[in-house]
């Protein structure tokens, strides 16, 4: 179980992000603090355009915050890099590389020994069910398969933190359900530390230990909701989980908060 006083694995502390000049530009995120403990799965939900993706981009180090800081184990996180792997909504696979080469890319960039590279690529291909697509190019794969490759590429890095920015937002409903269940299974087995952005309340309740609800733009933290951890109903498929009274209650509560923000916009 989590120690409430432990230093968070990842901490976004008092993040404010202006696009354009401060004061006259667009305020995307206003003084947001999010922390994720080691092994915790945290979802950020909010209405479209509320700045949740900006929070992710800043958290990954891909953009500088106007104010505030990003800490890993209590120390400044610095440039983006392999400690924080990112899965993007639009997959972001390298079109000129095969599936195996995509997964291997980050391992080559960080000088992982050659035989270890091969071992990890093979392992991820098996875990994500991609072995037969090893030598295919991304353009030859469906959206669901492409996102599997992107997840495999992120996990092969053995990151301390996994950042996922609406990873299933571009997928059809059936594929999304299957991938949600796989991510649920994986994170339960492997105890990944995950910060996950989504606009789907159901996805947030099913996957996460804690849900952070953001307000409409400029994004502020509206409320944090602790969900039951390590309960049996979460480990099954999402259909079954959605019938559990605890799931229904959490979904109702979070949806009410999100709805308030959408209606007030």
């Amino acid at each position, binding site marked *: 179980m989590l120690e409430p006083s432990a230093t968070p694995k990842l901490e976004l502390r008092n993040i404010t992000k202006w696009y354009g000049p401060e004061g006259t530009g667009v305020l995307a995120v206003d003084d947001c603090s999010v922390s994720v403990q080691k092994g915790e799965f945290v979802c950020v939900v909010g209405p479209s355009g509320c700045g949740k993706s900006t929070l992710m981009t800043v958290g*990954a*180090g*891909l953009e500088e915050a106007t104010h505030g800081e990003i800490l890993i184990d209590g120390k400044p996180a610095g*440039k*983006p*890099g*392999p400690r*924080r*792997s*990112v899965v*993007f909504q*639009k997959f*972001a*696979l*390298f*079109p*000129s*590389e095969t599936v195996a080469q995509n997964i291997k*890319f*980050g391992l080559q*960039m*960080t000088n992982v020994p050659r035989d270890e590279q091969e071992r990890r690529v093979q392992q991820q291909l098996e875990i994500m069910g991609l072995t037969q697509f090893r030598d*295919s*190019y*991304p*353009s*030859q*794969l*469906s959206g669901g398969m492409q996102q599997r490759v992107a997840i495999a*590429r992120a996990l092969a*890095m053995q990151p301390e933190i996994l950042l996922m920015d609406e990873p299933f937002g571009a997928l059809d409903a059936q594929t999304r359900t299957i991938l949600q269940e796989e991510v649920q299974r994986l994170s339960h087995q492997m105890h990944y530390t995950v910060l996950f952005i989504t606009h789907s309340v159901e996805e947030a309740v099913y996957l996460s230990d804690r849900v952070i609800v953001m307000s409409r733009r400029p994004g502020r933290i509206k409320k944090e909701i602790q969900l039951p951890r390590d309960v049996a109903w979460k480990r099954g498929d999402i259909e079954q989980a959605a019938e559990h009274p605890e799931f229904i209650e959490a979904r109702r509560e979070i949806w009410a908060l999100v709805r308030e923000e959408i209606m007030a916009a």
Partner: protein
Amino acid sequence: MRRIANGNLVLVSAAACVVWIAVWAWITRSGGPVSSLFLPSPGDVVERFGRMWVKPYIGSTLLGHVFSSLSIVLAGWALGGIVGVPLGVAMAWWPRVKWLVFPIFQLIRPVPPLAWIPLTLVWMGIGEPARIFVVFIAALVPWLMNSMQAVGSVDPLLIDAGRTLGASDGKILTRIVCRTALPTLIAGARIALGNAWTTLVAAELLAATAGLGYVALNASRMLDTDVLVVAMLLIGLLGVLLSLLMKLATHVLAPWSLSQQKG
């Protein structure tokens, strides 16, 4: 119409070629409507081709003229690439380089390569370097424009992905940006080669001592229309061949750009 299978299209094209040649043979037959002075018959052209293949015409055999034209085209085209690609990539990658180079480049771009010939004659005379230079100018524009566009249109998300995977700026440029841009770059190389070829033939008409354009010009002065047609057909065929070679290069160098989704 759009549903004709590929194999059938090849057949249709082959049949059309036969028909066109037959029409050509019919109108140029002895006693036909077109005098051989204006257009030789296919038989005359083939015969002339055979003779020129073994016997020198104005200084060298046909193969010698072909070789002369091709070597100048390839030299000018390659030089265009050596200068154009790094410059185009740099212009897309570092805005400062673009500010420096783009104004001059925009000024030069609308000047047809052939308009460089008079100045080139003053600078270099009518030798090979002059022709290589004019071809270089013709090839440079598509090389540079396409590499700039290719690099500029790489999805910034791929660069973000590279950064989160620990790639340095140098690796991002070489492993992600340049590789992703490769299909557009090869398309630029193909346009550059086409431009280079047509420009060279035109340059040979004005200032040359060998080559297919030079052969055509001499044949025109002597009213050797059969030689003229041989030269023109070769110019056309070699142009097609060069274009096909560049298509092949895309298959070999950027196979991913041709692959389709399996479902």
